[in-house]
């Protein structure tokens, strides 16, 4: 394996220093390092972060390979600075057995762009009726620790209680997609003044908040970990904050698009902006940013949701929910949080690497950039700006809401256990 000498990188935004990557680990960090036979990577002006870990990605394989495959999705992840992604279970067949999760895990290893940690479904077929074989998935080669019916809500209170209890046996965590189904039947966009004007059925904030409140209480009651997916409303942030203040075992994630975009975009009727949970109001965006800054929201997760062209090139009601997110995540976080002074790069490393790895109980990821640690890292240039071109993506799909938008920063290189997956912004 090639050794790499990374010169003048600013670790977590600090002073420039050198890193020597040798044998898959960070061998040494210091100024003016030399190393014979090592390839030199000039990182002048670049920020060095630990490899990003995504707790929420849709790789679509098996079943929807027209939208994305494990190969293309993980390449997009690497280009976004990720060294590990959790692949959600709403595939076809659903990832509710050891067999399917092992298949996805294996595909990830074969592709080699980043580590894939499959998420196991909570209920069989995501039907919300009976528990899937969570233990078998935990014991499988994929070593599943995160369980989620994402896409659907585990709305039955008894089932949610049982799932929370059951996963304690193997240090698992239930990641809930909080959406009361009866309050959101055929919902299309955030319920607000705009939804009434546009004639699009509303998705009220209370449908998210009511489930989160219930689940926090359940998690506390049975003393098990709850992770709340894609928090989108100010009210939800409040509830999570309260739960944490009480010391309850709750963690929460927010998606980049909820940190930047608002429901006003739906006025165009362009379904590129259709997502679940929906884009909300400016007040909600503000509350999420504050919550992410103060740690109420523990992590940024992309909810990368690729869709083929025909699922978005139609009228709003007929379109699929979801947006791409892997390749733009870090830039959006820079724009919404770093450039606004709400979070520094150390905070970004915490929210996008250390904490997600901790929640997923990942051994080799989210580690600090220090000698002896696995060389999972990303070099990022915060100074450049680029205009997002939807055709320039490793993903098979094109549904990015940022097309034509100027975003700061770009991922220059990504290293997975000492091997570059991305060099100079291109697949290595």
């Amino acid at each position: 394996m090639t050794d790499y000498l990374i010169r003048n990188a600013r670790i977590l935004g600090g002073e420039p220093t050198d890193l020597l990557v040798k044998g898959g680990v960070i061998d040494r960090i210091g100024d003016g390092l030399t190393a014979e036979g090592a390839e030199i990577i000039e990182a002048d002006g670049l920020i060095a972060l630990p490899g990003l870990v995504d707790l929420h990605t849709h790789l679509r394989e098996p079943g929807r390979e027209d939208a994305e495959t494990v190969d293309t999705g993980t390449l997009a992840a690497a280009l976004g600075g990720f060294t590990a992604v959790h692949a959600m279970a709403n595939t076809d067949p659903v990832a509710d057995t050891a067999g399917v999760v092992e298949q996805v895990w294996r595909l990830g290893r074969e592709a080699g762009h980043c580590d894939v940690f499959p998420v196991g479904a909570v209920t069989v077929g995501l039907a919300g009726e009976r528990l899937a074989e969570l233990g078998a998935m935990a014991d499988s080669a994929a070593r599943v620790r995160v369980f989620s019916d994402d896409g659907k809500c585990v709305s039955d209170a008894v089932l949610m209680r049982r799932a929370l209890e059951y996963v304690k046996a193997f240090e698992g965590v239930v990641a809930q997609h909080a959406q009361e189904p009866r309050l959101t039947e055929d919902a299309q966009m955030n319920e607000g003044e705009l939804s009434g004007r546009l004639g699009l059925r509303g998705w009220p904030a209370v449908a998210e908040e009511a489930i989160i409140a219930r689940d926090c209480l359940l998690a506390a009651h049975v003393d098990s970990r709850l992770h709340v997916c894609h928090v989108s409303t100010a009210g939800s942030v409040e509830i999570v904050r309260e739960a944490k203040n009480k010391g309850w075992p709750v963690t929460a994630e927010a998606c980049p698009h909820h940190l930047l975009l608002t429901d006003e975009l739906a006025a165009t009727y362009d379904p590129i902006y259709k997502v679940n949970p929906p884009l909300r109001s400016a007040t909600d965006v503000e509350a999420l940013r504050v919550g992410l800054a103060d740690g109420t929201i523990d992590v940024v997760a992309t909810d990368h949701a690729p869709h083929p062209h025909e699922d978005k090139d139609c009228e709003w009601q007929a379109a699929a929910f979801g947006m791409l997110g892997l390749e733009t995540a870090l830039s959006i976080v820079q724009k919404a949080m770093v450039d606004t002074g709400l979070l520094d790069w150390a905070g970004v490393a915490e929210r996008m690497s250390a904490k997600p790895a901790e929640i997923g109980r990942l051994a080799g990821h989210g580690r600090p950039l220090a000698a002896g640690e696995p060389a999972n890292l990303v070099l990022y240039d915060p100074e450049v700006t680029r205009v997002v071109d939807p055709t320039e993506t490793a993903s098979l799909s094109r549904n990015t809401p940022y097309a034509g938008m100027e975003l700061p920063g770009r991922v220059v290189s990504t290293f997975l256990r000492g091997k570059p997956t991305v060099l100079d912004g291109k697949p290595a």
Partner: protein
Amino acid sequence: MKKHLLSAGDLSRDDAELILQTAEELRSLADRPIKKLPALRGRTIVNLFFEDSTRTRISFEAAAKRLSADVINFSAKGSSLSKGESLKDTALTLEAMGADAVVVRHWASGAPHLLANAGWSRSSVINAGDGTHEHPTQALLDAFTMWRHLGDLDGRRIAIVGDVLHSRVARSNALLLRTLGAEVTLVAPPTLLPYGVDGWGVETSYDLDGVLPKTDVVMMLRVQRERMNAAFFPTVREYSRRYGLDGRRMANLQDHTIVMHPGPMIRGMELTADVADSERSVIVEQVTNGVAVRMAVLYLLLGGSEPALGGAEPFETPRPSAPQGPLAPGGEE
């Protein structure tokens, strides 16, 4: 110049008055021996109806034919499961056929918007009703009917009663009547008023009896019985008791007050027979006016080298302007 008519909110006061004046001139066509004007000779207008609606389609067809346009009727039954492929492919086909204008009715809110902006065709798009969003020509013919009976609509009080939540007619009327200076009150049970309706610039009331004596126009909306099953109201009986217009309530109206309904109406639900057949009811006249108003719209959009609407900015912009964050979204240009 506005090439499309997608929303009543797009019309400035000047635009709206121009349409009404033009409709007034065209209305007299119905009394002539030859009910035809050559203004749209050689233009092709397509009626693209994804939802059943014989009345509106016939009204547009009559309007187009009286202006000597060629009319093509395209009726596509799309279920809510079928994707917009049919919309896009249909639009591409119409473009290939050389349609000058497409009159579209669709079950999805925003479908005409998509047709106008997706770049699939260059035709003028006229919204004949999209989901629960808008029905601008209905609002125009309603305003025309009111104007013919009451004159200038400045300061007039209009009550719109019924299932406002699911009504595109209510939305378009609320926007247009405000533009024309009228005061609108929406009357419905709380479950049938949209969330955020306070931002529409209209009054709301749950009490029909309190509102009726002060109004100049009462517009009754359709209410579907099935809404009862989704718990919007407990029974048909309770609904019509509290929000139906019957003879007793009609007697409390001022002498000049007219009763309107966009049709089709359910006798006994929102209106009783004696109200529907009374002299106050202008429901049948609304239909006649519909043809004249649609003729006016077609003429102003297609009769010259370019549309005659959209010279001035609307005095209020009901839609939000540039979004936060990203640039103007794709699809507009």
